[in-house]
């Protein structure tokens, strides 16, 4: 009994340690973004929003946020759409070379980002498409679609296989069944894929850096500021970026978990019954 308790305590401590290890640097950066000292050192100076004011008055940073917002919103829409189509194809059809199709669809995230960025730059400049906002969008869609697909595919794996047939059986054409049954069923996964891909695109640096040209995204401008001088406005930008993408990711999780879990309750019952 006590042995179990000790083990449990140890495991709890271990989990805490992991979280501290992951989040301490970010929290440090967050703390120093409100610190008046020029260099991050202890003891802390006094509380200030000066660094935030600096970035708010910097038109370059505003512009970068604008570019990032456009890019991540477009990327989220496009890659969620592509991800859904790929996942649905996988769910609905069986064809020769399906495993190759799936492997290709899930491949991009396994390619090192620097290689990917370089390759994208080489291709896009060859066809005169580099250095524009849409160059970043195209590259990010390639990168993000697999994430969207993975999330939506997980959801489709839970669907009662008779559900779509039931819609056809009741007079729904293939398109209407898609609209009335598949999309509502996948809605939590679609919203969550949307948030997730927006976050990935918003944070992504390497590929953006290669293909963005003069349209700098937030991570690109962070590097630029860092190269010039280190001052705590980096901490301020970093905190904003972190909060933005964390919000998106957490939102994605919450939507998926709550919505999907009550629907799963039903499909769960059904699959159990079929097993009997």
């Amino acid at each position: 009994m006590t042995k179990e308790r000790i083990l449990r305590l140890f495991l709890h401590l271990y989990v805490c340690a992991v979280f501290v290890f992951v989040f301490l640097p970010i929290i440090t950066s967050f703390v120093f973004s409100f610190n008046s000292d020029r260099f991050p050192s202890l003891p802390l100076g006094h509380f200030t929003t000066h660094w935030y004011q600096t970035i708010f008055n910097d038109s370059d940073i505003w512009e970068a946020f604008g570019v990032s917002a456009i890019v991540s919103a477009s990327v989220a829409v496009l890659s969620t759409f592509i991800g859904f189509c790929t996942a649905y194809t996988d769910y609905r059809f069986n064809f020769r070379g399906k495993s190759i199709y799936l492997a290709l669809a899930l491949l991009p995230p396994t390619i090192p980002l620097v290689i990917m960025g370089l390759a994208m730059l080489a291709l896009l400049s060859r066809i005169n498409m580099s250095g524009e906002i849409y160059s970043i969008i195209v590259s990010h869609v390639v990168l993000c679609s697999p994430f969207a697909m993975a999330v939506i595919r997980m959801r489709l794996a839970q669907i009662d296989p008779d559900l779509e047939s039931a819609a056809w059986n009741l007079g729904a054409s293939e398109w209407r069944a898609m609209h009335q049954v598949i999309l509502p069923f996948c809605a939590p996964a679609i919203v969550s894929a949307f948030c997730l891909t927006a976050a990935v695109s918003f944070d992504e640096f390497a590929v953006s850096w290669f293909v963005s040209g003069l349209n700098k995204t937030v991570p690109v401008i962070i590097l630029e500021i860092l190269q010039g001088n280190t001052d705590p406005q980096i901490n301020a930008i970093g905190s904003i970026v972190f909060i933005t993408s964390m919000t998106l990711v957490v939102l994605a999780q919450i939507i998926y978990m709550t919505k999907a879990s009550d629907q799963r309750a039903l499909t769960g019952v059904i699959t159990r019954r079929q097993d009997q």
Partner: protein
Amino acid sequence: MTEPLVVFDNVSKHYGDVVAVSNLHLTISEGEFLAIMGSSGCGKTTTLRMLAGLEEPTNGEIRLDGTRMNEVSASERDTPMVWQSLALFPFLNVQKNVEFGLKMRGQSPTARREKANQWLERLDIAELANRDVRQLSGGQRQRVALARSLVTEPRILLLDEPLSALDANLVVRMQGVLARLQKELGITFIYVTHSQSEAFAMSDRVVIMNNGQIEQTGTPREVYRNPETRFVAEFVGSNNILSGTVKDGGDTIVIDSQLGLFSCNKTNKPSPPVGSHVSFVISADLINISMHPTGSLNELKCQFISEEFIGSVVTLLTESEHGSEFKIQKQQREISELDIQPGSTLYINWDLAHAHLLPTIT
């Protein structure tokens, strides 16, 4: 002459090398309650799905009301189905689930609501209209699925093992609901099941399938008492099957089996020639049992092995001298009057008329 409502004309379905249904000929008339029965993988569900347009026949033609259906898509056929999983839409409430078919047919919201309410009332679930389908019990879900399929007032309803997920007592109740509904509506029900009790309780006619082919078609009584193939005899009811060679082919056929000589009534089929190999069936409930030899025809000495007690009916398992097993079904109170102990010697016999000769395969 008008054609029956549904015609399967030499229909086959292959999945690669696997033959799910082969050369199926089946006609189903308007207003009939037909049960298709068989063990899993016999092709019964494939047959149903082909009629609904969810599978395309590899060969042959399916006609509905005289029209060839092969090329008609599932959504354009009026063949609603009640699914084994029920396949209720989890993101819609009861009312919206029931309205779905009407919505797909472009009916106005008010017309939809009115019709849906009628059916909810008819199936005694009007008070559940605004409930989430996830919150319903098994029986309630069943009724929602029925209402959803019937709301478009089809001429035919397909049911794919709809009761297999319910508790035994609920199954009996739903059987009553289904049978009554079918009589009242006068539409065709095609009911796929592996359960003999469900099929026999409700249907006018039973089709027994095995390996993608029809073994026998007939009323539940015919199928039960006069099995035409060995498969049917083994699948339906609780039958004892004996084999032997024909010794005498007169009015009563005498069969020489390894257990001795047995007599069988000559059926109106051509009687098997002397020396041919035949099988005959004695239903377990038609066997008489006594503790002493009675000297009657078709008598066998057996040893009692075990009994299976399911309520009022008991199935006794006995073994004859040559190791063949005999199943005997009796009322529990009849058995309790006899003093049967494990290992007791019993004498079993049956009426000449109760031995049913299986047609010989030619």
